[in-house]
């Protein structure tokens, strides 16, 4: 141990931490982390919307199986979902690249949590709105689409942003199937040098922190702003 905190290991590998071997090879590091998080976030927004609306269905035949599926996913660790996908997807789809396996697992997992946010948001819209819309002659689907969802979705925004923060943190689990996102890059460099684990993991943690903290602050600000508007 020549120096207590040796930052040269970070400086020497900085590009590798940020984008992996990008211009010459596949995207990695922080870039891949963001790619995974953003893709899974967009997909699970729709997944969560569908599951959330199905879980509010008035038909028991739809509602109960959906709730069972959501609760099954919510009671499993994400790692288990990733292993399931890693194991099941090839059986149905043939060879699936690891990155896509992880995106599918993250999407399924996050959709289950998003669906609870959607359900809470929809239920948070006063009943009078639905009744009024129905009595003006809108169908149930139209009521949901034009009256309830636009109001409900606005209240869900802060929770969605929080869920995105969880998603950024969850992408670190892609490490387990060898997807070279930020955490994986950290372990790779650690395995190669074997001398600066403290520096490497403190740096990796700081990068995640800056990213997540920015979004946590955004969500807090949005919550404040939206509640202020509601009061007027």
């Amino acid at each position: 141990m020549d120096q207590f905190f040796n930052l040269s290991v970070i400086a020497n590998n900085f590009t590798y931490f940020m984008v992996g071997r990008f211009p010459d090879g596949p995207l990695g590091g922080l870039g891949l982390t963001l790619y995974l998080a953003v893709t899974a976030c967009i997909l699970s927004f729709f997944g969560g919307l569908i599951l959330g609306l199905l879980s509010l269905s008035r038909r028991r035949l739809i509602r109960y199986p959906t709730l069972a599926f959501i609760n099954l996913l919510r009671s499993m660790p994400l790692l288990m979902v990733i292993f399931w996908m890693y194991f099941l997807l090839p059986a149905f789809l043939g060879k699936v690249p690891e990155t896509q396996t992880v995106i599918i697992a993250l999407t399924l997992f996050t959709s289950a949590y998003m669906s609870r946010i959607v359900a809470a948001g929809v239920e948070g819209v006063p009943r009078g709105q639905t009744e009024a819309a129905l009595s003006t002659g809108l169908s149930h689907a139209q009521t949901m689409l034009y009256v309830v969802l636009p109001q409900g979705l606005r209240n869900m925004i802060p929770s969605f942003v929080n869920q995105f923060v969880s998603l950024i943190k969850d992408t670190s689990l892609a490490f387990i199937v060898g997807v070279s996102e930020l955490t994986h890059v950290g372990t790779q460099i650690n395995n190669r040098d074997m001398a600066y684990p403290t520096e490497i993991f403190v740096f990796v943690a700081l990068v995640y922190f800056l990213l997540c903290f920015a979004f946590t602050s955004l969500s807090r600000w949005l919550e404040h702003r939206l509640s202020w508007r509601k009061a007027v």
Partner: protein
Amino acid sequence: MLAYRFDWSVITSGAYHDWLVSGVIVTLKLSVVSIVFSFLVGLLIAVMRMSHSGPFRWFAHAYLEFFRNTPLLVQIFFWYFGSYKVLPMFVNDWLNEVGFEFAAAAVALTIYTSAFIAEDIRSGVLSIPKEQMEAARSAGFSYLQAMRFVILPQAVRITVPPLINQFLNLAKNSSLAMTIGVMELTYQARQVESYTFKGFEAFSAATVVYVVISLVITLVVNVYNNKVLNIHRAR
């Protein structure tokens, strides 16, 4: 998929069954140890966060923000690979004796969960209207007495369900300990899969255990809400 031949005997008896059972025990052990410590640490941090002294409050704030906004996996790696430099020698020796993997995982889980628990406790206390404190003070209670007899008894009731839920999160999060070689449930399921190629059976068994843990906890929360909190609901 059609070519797959199910063989449930792999997980119902024999060595692989024993692996899974030992995995369940390690998962529960890790979760119970971590929940106890993270409650204590979380309580301390929550008190610091609400204290009137600036440095305490700032420290607690930084602690909460930092550990809630970094992935648990990175924290586990930090404690496992990177902590020997920052810890005193005798602590390292002791950790090597008790099994460094388990200790590192328990420390990471404790610190991560304590940040969430601290917020649960804080929001429980903050949910008690200010007037309660003012009324208690004007009735002649000291600040501590008001806390002890008026605020906390109400706050604890509200805080219990989220705390029980944190145990569920902890049980799920403990699966990440497999990455540093703690032989908990997910690790063993993976192990059984690679030894027998019976992934479906192994993962099903592990999933069922996680679902049972979660059902039990949901049940406990529901019973608690009905039996203890019904006073609030009946209006």
